[in-house]
């Protein structure tokens, strides 16, 4: 398979999944098998065809359709997009397995619709990853929003309707008001929206640069930059597999990926360095980073706590991109990977606790660790990775981000990283501590049964192991991301 074909197969393969799921809806086991097989196939295409091609220096390009003169949908793969695609597709099969266990364990309705929308959202994420120009990225960005809406409102009750309103209102509102504005502006200023190494906005008047950057940064509300972050906690009303893959990986990473990609390939690092136009974004991201961590400390609802943690961790990536030093951008790219594996582990565990023990508040977790050892063991590893402690993946991205702050000669940011890591200890460790601190009285077990269904336990264990593996196998990833830098 040529890399150009592989782009299409990977981006639209999930649509095949969606069709198969729709056809097999009546036989749940077959339906899930279809998802697992096709999702693994998509991952195999990305890892087996696209990865070697990009490593070899190839930048596969494919025109999809010319909408009108000067406006075309096209795919061009470069290292950053490949990294995002690898993350999304590698975690998709695992999450599908988990989702099957979770939905059945919870007795959720409309499971077929769930898996269809899930596949559509993945297709959208891959479209974002492969986008060859800002317009294509915008199209798939909106596709993600629309396809995840039924997932967020899956329950169909009053609460999910309200959350859905917030979700759609913020994501779509900002993308139409700011992002579309930015896309048209870019097209007008540069005559193209193609992602080009070194950027395309060299001729933009200097005082316009920060403004356009602001339109991009706030228009991409999926990156959950304050003050447009509220959709993320609201989306926690969705079933946990959605929170896990979409609101820890695909959707939010599509946001930070967009910002990073635009910084590198539309503005160009050099332009931003000389104009200093991203300095304000450093400040906004720093504020988001810190305040979201503080808010997370006070959340008793486990999923909400993780959501605020996500907001804070996303700000790391935006901050890395905004620092525009080579190492910081590389760190931002790495953090997309390491945070994905860490945070999906945590969400998997939170969901397993909901399914196995019917608890969703941190204050209810006392002693549960002894009864769900695998789940909380994985939670511990995920937490350590998020905090940035070796030998887990998160340590590397923080290392590069910190180095990037030094390279950008921004020492206060270094301090900020330390403080926020401490805060991460503060909001994640109590969960583990509570779970293991007290040993429960075995006599209470009978009237309070706790189970660990294997489909909900295996995935977090796998991703937790992934955190460990990535720590030792980070070199190829770094080498790949160095291709992003000029």
């Amino acid at each position: 398979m040529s890399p150009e074909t592989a782009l299409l197969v990977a981006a639209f393969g999930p649509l095949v999944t969606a069709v198969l799921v729709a056809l097999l809806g009546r036989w749940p086991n077959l339906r899930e098998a279809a998802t697992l097989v096709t999702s693994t196939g998509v991952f195999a295409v990305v890892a087996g065809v696209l990865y070697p091609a990009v490593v070899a220096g190839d930048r596969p390009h494919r025109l999809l359709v010319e909408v009108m003169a000067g406006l075309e949908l096209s795919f061009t793969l470069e290292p950053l997009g490949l990294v995002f695609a690898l993350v999304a597709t590698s975690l998709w099969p695992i999450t599908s397995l988990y989702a099957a266990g979770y939905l059945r364990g919870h007795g959720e309705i409309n499971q077929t619709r769930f898996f269809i929308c899930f596949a559509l959202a993945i297709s959208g994420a891959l479209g974002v990853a492969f986008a060859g120009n800002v317009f294509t990225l915008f199209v798939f960005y909106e596709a993600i929003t629309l396809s995840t809406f039924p997932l967020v409102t899956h329950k169909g009750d009053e609460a999910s309707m309200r959350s859905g309103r917030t979700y759609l209102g913020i994501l779509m509102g900002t993308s139409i008001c700011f992002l579309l504005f930015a896309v048209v502006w870019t097209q007008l200023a540069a005559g193209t929206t193609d992602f080009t190494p070194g950027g395309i906005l060299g001729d933009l008047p200097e005082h316009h640069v920060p403004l356009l950057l602001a339109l991009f940064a706030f228009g991409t509300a999926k990156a959950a930059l304050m003050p447009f972050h509220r959709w993320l906690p609201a989306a926690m009303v969705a079933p946990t597999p959605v929170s896990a893959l979409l609101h820890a990986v695909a959707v939010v990473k599509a946001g930070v990926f967009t910002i990073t990609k635009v910084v590198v390939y539309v503005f160009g690092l050099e332009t931003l360095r000389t104009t200093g136009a991203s300095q304000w974004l450093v400040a906004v991201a720093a504020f988001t980073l810190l305040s979201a961590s503080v808010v997370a400390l006070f959340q008793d609802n486990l999923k909400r706590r993780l959501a605020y943690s996500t907001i804070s961790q996303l700000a790391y990536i935006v901050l890395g991109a905004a620092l525009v030093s080579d190492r910081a951008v590389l760190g931002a790219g790495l953090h997309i990977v390491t945070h994905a594996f860490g945070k999906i582990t945590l969400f998997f565990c939170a969901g397993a606790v909901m399914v196995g023990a019917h608890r969703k508040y941190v204050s209810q977790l006392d002693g549960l660790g002894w009864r769900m050892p695998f789940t909380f063991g994985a939670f511990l590893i995920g937490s350590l990775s998020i905090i940035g402690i070796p030998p887990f993946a998160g340590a590397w991205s923080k290392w590069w981000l910190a180095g990037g702050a030094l390279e950008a000669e921004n020492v206060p940011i270094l301090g900020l990283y330390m403080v926020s890591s401490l805060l991460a200890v503060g909001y994640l460790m109590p969960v583990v501590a509570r779970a293991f601190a007290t040993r429960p009285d075995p006599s209470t077990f009978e009237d309070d049964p706790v189970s660990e269904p294997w489909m909900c336990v295996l995935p977090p264990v796998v991703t937790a192991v992934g955190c460990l593996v990535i720590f030792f196998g980070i070199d190829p990833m770094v080498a790949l991301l160095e291709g992003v830098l000029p």
Partner: protein
Amino acid sequence: MSEPSMGFTEVVIENLPILQVILPLMAAPVCVLLRSGRASWALATAVAWVNCAISWALLQIVLRDGFLSYAVGDWPAPWGIELRIEPVNALVLLIVSGIAAVVITACPRSLDSEVPAGRHYLFHAAFLLCITGLLGMASAGDAFNVFVFLEISSLSSYSLIALGRHRRALTSSFRYLILGTLGGTSILFGVGLLYMSTGTLNLVDLGQRLQDVGPTRTVMVAMAAIVVGSTLKLALLPLGAWLPNAYTFAPSTVTAFLAATATKVAFYVLARFIYRVFSPAIAFETFHLDAVLLPLALASMVLGAVLAVFEKDVKRLLAYSSLSQIGYMTLGLSLVSVTGLAGGLVHLFNHALMKSGLFMVVACVVLRTGSSRIEAFHGLGRRMPFTMAAFVVGGLSLIGVPLTVGFISKWFLVKGALEQELWPVAAVILGSSILAVIYIWKVVEVGYFKEPHPDFEAREAPLSLLIPTWLLLAGAVYFGIFAEPTTGLATLAAQSLMEAAP
């Protein structure tokens, strides 16, 4: 024109411009003579599709030759009556005849439930007359016949609206009649003044002679009268007060037709007069018409959308949304650039597709539930899944989600605004899209999240309505993905409007 040696086909092709006006005009009295609902429907449908084919053929000729001039009765312009088809009105003709054909094909079931059977033949006759008027207005090459056809289309649309099942249809129609007559008279007044100044009625001739006359006070008054008259028919704020009630109380299929066509033709008349008769130099540089139209367009966009947000009846909600969309078109016109004007023109086409599709959805719901109130939409996601899905598609297009026609329009308009560094205008365009998100999602939400309302029974709409509805909305998606034909034609039309008369 037709010489004895020519075969039938040649004769038909030669006379296409007049045929599309004559056919429905002749068919209308036949409908009355037939006195049968079904027979008159069959006739009207056949004529509508033939017209559709004719406008397609005309478009091809215009694309090949640039323009097409037809001398009625072989009296050459500027003395005789000329029908003149250029890219811009070829587009309008196609919109009118295409939408008319789809809507009339779909209408029997909806008509059965909304209009007494004894009046169906009258409905079809009025419908055909309305098509005559609109097509005539769009193809007339002289100012006086623009007025004549305007009156034909207006009178027939008053009677179409009055056929609505609610008694308020009568008052709405009457109100439209009063205001519409004022608008028509105003146009006639303007045309009279122009004739006084130049001694001609032919539009091309008028345009040339006005250059010599220059911006006199008489010309200014004429322009004011024509602009006021046509914005009244166009329903631009503050002269659009007739529209919401007329759309709400008219039979659903009439609304679907009129919303997609009547205002579009009025827009064409306005654009034609401003750009080709008065010329941008007089209209914008001397009289600063854009300083009036631009704020009104922006106000329409926002106010229409705000009213829609608070509206509880979906049909009226869409009518308010039309007010807002008319603002978009007028905005394109007042940007005075090829991009802006092309945006306005492409939005004519795009809005016609999506809004008639959405009104058809309402027609489906009214047929099944008997109401267009928002309560009737409760729980329709499960009870009328295809209808509701159609609403979602049309709604997304109205919002301007990429890969729908709404996005294409917005892209042009925002680009047009940014080209002239009108940042606030671009912001208003995008801001009003947010309002569209709110008013569309309000309906989508109740459709999918609310339990069905006990007062309203519902089951899926019949295919005879669903297929045309989906045809229109599939068009709204198709031309959002493959936008080259529409945007190309709109750009061509905008260029031909911007440059001086050939």
